[in-house]
């Protein structure tokens, strides 16, 4: 193991397909037209000195160190900004060039502290390297001249420091903030010698628009922008490439280590999902893995009101197994089940569902995708034939029009959000359909052409209205539809959407979006060369979530926007492995690879490999499990890496269900909300402590590599295996690799996937098999997976969750950049500096009506319950709509969400809850009870600690 130092070619690769041959220092080199001399030289191992150039951003030509000489040309051009040309002859080194470079370095060092030995960059500093490379031996200017050595250090950001005294004003940070991240938080203030990096208008980093993505830190060639962890721990000595465990972008990271300690997480330049970019979560918020709250000893207890008992792994596993067996004996085979998690690896998810099916002997397995993207699986399978997004992330760089529906990429999928913004800055047009004014609607150098600010719950009406315009204004791509789609289904759909009641004019009453705007947006999308749709939970988490997904697929097919780069239907998956956990057969009705349990061929395939008889009837979905628990027929649950007590709707109902069970086994890093209702706690391993794979939103399977030993001794799959063995169903995997091999042998779309392939390729997008040995970046090329694309009518049925005099506002929920999902991880990091509590966003009109100002405590009351939050009065939300995030358990966001769910998949209707908001003095009864319960449970934990 060694520290991976990425080669920096200095300037980005040229996309040209035309090649040019030139001679550099006497060596012939052939590179694509448009390549810089610097990159061409680097490609044959000639590294021209440089400081302002780095290959993640466009050349800038400011440091002037990279001067070269071109035969027949004048002067000493900068090699970073000089494009190659055919027959060019370049000299990169001679006495004159060296003299110039030395002169430049002499200038740099005349305004730089000489504290190399105690500098955090010592050993990894480009300035230091360049001084060495050019052979700088003296600084004749002395050090008494004008300088920046006394500049004040900005330590406001929790993760990195900004030390202007070490700054060489190369602008790499400014350019990274602009080009890579697209936030434009940094600029240069002043000019000439007084030029300095300025966050915002000379603010501290934390007070500026900075989103702490780390792109500037990554780009800095000196210690000016430096991780605090490196200040504390020193330079790392080895690194391991792994995959981020936060959102569905699935960024590749280098864990830079010292021993078993992570010094920093550095985005992997070669990462195919992120290309060296990151966000504040993946880049910096990994401290939870070593947080003191981590539980590393198995625990058991009889009742949830008993103190925990620390026990050995063997005892814990045996106890859990005996309980499950006891329950099954007493209440029957179907009285227990398991939950996989989208945060776990494919191998873990696969193993848990296998345990449920083979060891429990039923199909009572479900996953948290139930509550996020189950409608995607259903809708896309029905229409296109595959339960997955159609594109790569990079595809967006070919899009001409981007339609974002119910997604907030800059918060939820920030690294992809940055890529999308890059494309938008290049001129692609943007349509946003969202009740709320998300950042994409208007931010630095990005502005949506149309913001269709619809009322929550009316997605289907809007999608139908868009379709109506396409169909009635002759915008259908007839050739595509005739050739690629099922014509009968198209005709039926066309006749349906063409009806007047689906027109923008007729829909306006539901959606609240001006008909003209809908018409123009539809024309824009349909007339784009490449139109791409990106959507998120704002589409799926509705009573008609599946209908909207189908409607989106209809739009894409009708306009011919499927089956090539730049187009497609792109679900933005919430968690790191939503796609994977679904692929792995985590649903009660599907075996791995989305094959129905009722299908005899599939079942016998699995039966032969697993050596066990499989149940042909689908098992219970999560909400069914809750209902059955309350009914008394479901008594035991194995829950791995999911926190249903916080994340699932109607918290009181979930709590009641959990309290009704006799054995709840929670496998997690922390004593999460669900664990407070558990009888067995099995310590989990963080992503840094295990091996496996995650599959991101673009079907990209990326390796998760263990960088440190599991704190509790076992990787999660090993725990599942122990439990299965104890239950009497033998598993004997010696590594995650063996599990992946089994998955590959059973899933046609995974046939070619192996750790060996991932080591070679970095990652691979499924389907990966004999037909597509290198994977499939774009799906449905030439033909849909299901053969002919299938249109389906999408009748708009208003949700039963209506506003009334008593509940006049609609609450919708979402998330924020710095926090992740239920917050179990990010709340245990310094990310709380950005978001320390969930607040209720309310429009000034609604606030005024209720005498509410920002910061007031308000009760949010729905038909399901009541909770209290502080307010933020903002025009981001429309009148009649309030909004909050759900990152803190004490917020009780799901105390107020209801039992309503998607008609097809039971995905909860999180996005629409009728509420009333009123100013109050104290917290809600639920919150008070929650606090008391939390205190009780923490004392149970403390007692265990004392006893242990």
């Amino acid at each position, binding site marked *: 193991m060694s520290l991976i130092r990425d080669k920096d070619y200095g300037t980005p690769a040229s996309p040209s397909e035309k090649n040019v041959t030139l001679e550099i220092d006497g060596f012939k080199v052939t590179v694509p037209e448009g390549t810089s001399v610097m990159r061409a030289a680097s490609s044959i191992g000639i590294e021209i000195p440089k400081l302002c150039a780095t290959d993640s951003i466009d*050349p*800038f*030509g*400011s*440091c*002037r*160190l990279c*001067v070269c000489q071109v035969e027949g040309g004048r*002067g*000493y051009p*900068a090699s970073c*900004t*000089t*494009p190659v040309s055919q027959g060019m002859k370049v000299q990169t080194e001679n006495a*004159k060039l060296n*003299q*110039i470079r030395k*002169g*430049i370095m002499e*200038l*740099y060092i*005349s*305004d730089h502290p000489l504290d190399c030995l105690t500098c955090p960059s010592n050993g990894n500093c480009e300035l230091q390297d360049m001084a060495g490379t050019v052979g700088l031996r003296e600084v*004749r*200017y002395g050090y008494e*001249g*004008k300088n920046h050595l006394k500049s004040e250090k900005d330590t406001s950001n929790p993760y990195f420091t900004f030390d202007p005294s070490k700054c*060489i*004003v190369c*602008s790499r940070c400014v350019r990274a903030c602009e080009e890579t991240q697209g936030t434009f938080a940094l*600029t*240069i203030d*002043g*000019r*000439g*010698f*007084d*030029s300095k990096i300025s966050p915002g208008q000379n603010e501290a980093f934390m007070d500026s628009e900075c989103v702490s993505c780390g792109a500037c830190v990554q780009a800095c060639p000196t210690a000016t922008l430096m991780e605090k962890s490196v200040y504390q721990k020193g330079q790392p000595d080895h690194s391991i490439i792994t995959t981020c465990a936060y959102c569905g972008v699935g960024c590749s990271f280098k864990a830079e280590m010292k021993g078993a300690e992570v010094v920093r997480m550095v985005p992997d330049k070669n990462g195919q999902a992120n290309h060296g970019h990151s966000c504040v979560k993946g880049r910096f918020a990994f401290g939870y893995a070593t947080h003191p709250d981590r539980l590393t000893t198995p625990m058991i207890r009889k009742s949830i009101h008993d103190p925990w008992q620390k026990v050995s792994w063997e005892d814990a596993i045996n106890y859990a197994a005996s309980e499950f067996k006891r329950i099954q004996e007493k209440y029957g085979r179907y009285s227990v089940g398991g939950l996989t998690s989208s945060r776990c690896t494919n191998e873990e998810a696969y193993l848990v569902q296998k345990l449920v099916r083979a060891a429990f002997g039923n199909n009572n397995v479900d996953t948290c995708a139930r509550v996020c993207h189950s409608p995607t699986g259903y809708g896309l399978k029905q229409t296109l034939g595959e339960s997955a997004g159609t594109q790569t992330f990079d595809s967006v760089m070919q899009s001409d029009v981007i339609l974002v529906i119910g997604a907030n990429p800059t918060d939820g999928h920030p690294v992809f959000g940055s890529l999308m913004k890059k494309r938008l800055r290049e001129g692609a047009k943007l349509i946003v359909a969202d009740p709320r004014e998300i950042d994409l609607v208007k931010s630095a150098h990005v502005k949506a052409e149309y913001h269709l600010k619809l009322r929550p719950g009316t997605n289907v009406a809007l999608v139908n209205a868009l379709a109506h315009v396409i169909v009635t204004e002759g915008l259908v791509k007839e050739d595509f539809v005739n050739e690629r789609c099922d014509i009968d289904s198209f005709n039926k759909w066309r006749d349906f959407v063409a009806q007047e009641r689906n027109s923008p004019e007729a829909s306006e009453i539901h959606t609240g979006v001006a008909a003209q705007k809908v018409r123009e947006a539809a024309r824009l999308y349909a007339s784009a060369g490449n139109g791409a749709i990106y959507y998120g939970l704002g589409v799926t988490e509705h009573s008609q979530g599946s209908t909207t997904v189908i409607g989106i697929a209809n739009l894409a097919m009708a306009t011919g926007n499927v089956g090539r780069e730049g187009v497609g239907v792109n679900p933005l998956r919430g968690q790191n492995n939503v796609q994977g956990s679904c692929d792995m057969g985590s649903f009660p009705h599907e075996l791995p690879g989305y094959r129905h349990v009722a299908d005899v061929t599939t079942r016998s395939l699995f039966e032969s490999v697993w050596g066990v008889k499989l149940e042909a009837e689908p098992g219970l979905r999560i909400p069914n499990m809750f209902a059955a628990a309350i009914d008394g027929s479901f008594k035991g649950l194995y829950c791995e890496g999911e926190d249903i007590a916080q994340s699932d709707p109607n918290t009181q109902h979930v709590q009641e269900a959990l309290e009704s069970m006799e054995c709840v086994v929670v496998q997690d890093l922390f004593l999460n909300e669900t664990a407070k209702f558990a009888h067995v706690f099995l310590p989990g391993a963080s992503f840094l402590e295990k091996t496996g794979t995650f599959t991101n939103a673009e079907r990209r399977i990326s390796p998760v590599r263990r960088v440190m030993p599991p704190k509790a001794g076992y990787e999660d799959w090993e725990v599942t295996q122990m439990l299965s063995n104890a239950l009497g169903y033998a598993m004997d995997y010696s590594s995650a690799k063996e599990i992946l091999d089994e998955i590959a042998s059973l899933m046609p779309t995974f046939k070619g996937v192996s750790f060996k392939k991932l080591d070679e390729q970095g990652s691979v997008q499924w389907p990966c098999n004999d037909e597509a040995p290198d994977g499939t970046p774009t799906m449905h090329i030439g033909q849909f997976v299901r053969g002919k694309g299938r249109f389906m009518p999408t009748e708009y049925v208003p949700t039963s969750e209506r506003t009334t005099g008593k509940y006049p506002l609609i609450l919708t929920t979402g998330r924020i950049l710095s926090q992740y999902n239920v917050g179990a991880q990010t709340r245990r990091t310094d990310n709380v500096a950005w978001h320390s509590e969930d607040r209720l966003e309310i429009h000034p009109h609604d606030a005024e009506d209720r005498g509410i100002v920002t910061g007031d405590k308000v009760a949010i009351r729905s038909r399901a319950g009541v909770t209290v939050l502080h307010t933020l009065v903002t025009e981001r939300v429309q009148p009649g709509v309030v909004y909050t995030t759900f990152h803190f358990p004490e917020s009780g966001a799901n105390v107020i969400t209801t039992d309503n769910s998607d008609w097809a998949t039971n995905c909860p209707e999180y996005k629409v809850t009728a509420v009333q908001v009123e100013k109050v003095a104290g917290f809600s009864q639920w919150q008070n009870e929650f606090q008391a319960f939390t205190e009780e449970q923490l004392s149970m934990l403390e007692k265990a600690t004392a006893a242990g």
Partner: protein
Amino acid sequence: MSITVYVPGDSSALSLGAEKTAVAIASEAAQRGVEIDLVRNGSRGLFWLEPLVEVATPAGRIAFGPVQASDVPGLFDADFLNGGSHALSLGLTEEIEYLKKQERLTNARVGIIDPVSLEDYLAHEGYRGLQNALQLAPADIVKQVTDSGLRGRGGAAFPTGIKWNTVLNAQGGQKYIVCNADEGDSGTFSDRMIMEDDPFVLVEGMTIAGLAVGATQGYIYLRVEYPHAHKNLNAAIAAAEKAGYLGADICGSGKAFNLEVRLGAGAYVCGEETSLLESLEGKRGLVRYKPPLPAIKGLFGQPTVINNVISLASVPIILDKGGEYYRDFGVGRSRGTLPIQLAGNIKHPGLVEKAFGITLRELLYDYGGGSATGLPIKAVQVGGPLGAFVPESQFDTPLDYEAFAANWAVLGHGGVVVFDDTVDMAKMARYAMEFCAIESCGKCTPCRIGSTRGVEVLDKIIANEDRANNIALLRDLSDVMLNSSLCALGGMTPFPVLSALNHFPEDFGAE
């Protein structure tokens, strides 16, 4: 019949009291019941004679100057309105030697017409170039400009026709014409005079440029310190629009060209074409690297002609009289005329438009009349703050880009600043470095840090601190700046510094 009296409204005349003079003439005439037609013309460019009042007589325009308000009653007493003799009388304006010997092509109307009168402009051969251009194919317009031998008058002397041809052939949706009117060089004012005193010629030149390359939008990037030029340009643009010389349908041709003035924010470096474009786009005035050339990727990333005021203002006469006509003036590869601006310590400062080939000595003595102090001229700085100091030994060099280059000097924008023998050239070298330090955009290292260190090193030299080593260091620094700066600001600062050091070593402590 009323008599026409001309009192310049040009800012050089105004700064010498022309406004008061004009008021005095008007009120004196009213008091005396004399009917006059007071025209605020531009300046003839004879600054030591400003305010230069002219009276139209049957024999021609008769000049009086410099006329202060206090001189006015006396002039009336002397019946100056009918050419009566007076101590301030200069005779027929056209016969004033300084003016008579000039070859005014670009400045043909400057000082003669009412700058904002389209009628006056048309009466003085205005818009004839445009009328011709409208009859030509774009490539033929470009050919005329190429044939004329016109080179960029902003200082870089790049052949204008070649630049236009590149833009003509460039692929791009919207093309632009940008006029660099950020005239920031010390001792220069020819751009200002065109814009104040004959703004239509610039408007016409830009319109022709638009027709030539297929650009429908033009911008004049004007330095904020030129409020009079701003006012007159806007007036000219409005008049041209109204009369159909600008807009969607130029003179009924169906061709469009629109023009807008944008103000700079006081940065010298924004006169550098690429930082000008950045500034015009609303960004910080940072220099861009080249290639890509602005002709390929200029304003908002589109093909852009960016030319200096004088270059563009020379186009109408080229299109009027033909490339050959213009080309017949000048020497070698320097064709046509150059508006030279005499300033500094000179007896007769002003504008001298002459064909290339005239020597510095002729300019300094025949036109300039020697130094204002009467002391010997020690050096002149030609081409603004980045131009070399030229010693007396080189005064016989003809004004010609190549001849100057051979002396390691530049013509630049044609500004000539004169110093007598009391000047300390070490301090001038320090001043040049300091100018660079103050005006550096801060992008490239040699200029950003180098200019500040240059000042410090020169301070040490002046203070006689380790002089030999510091002079060696100054030379090394100059070499780095010269060879590796991103733009001419850092790249040419060594011109004044090293020319001072090389030509006047005694000022740097040499024995």
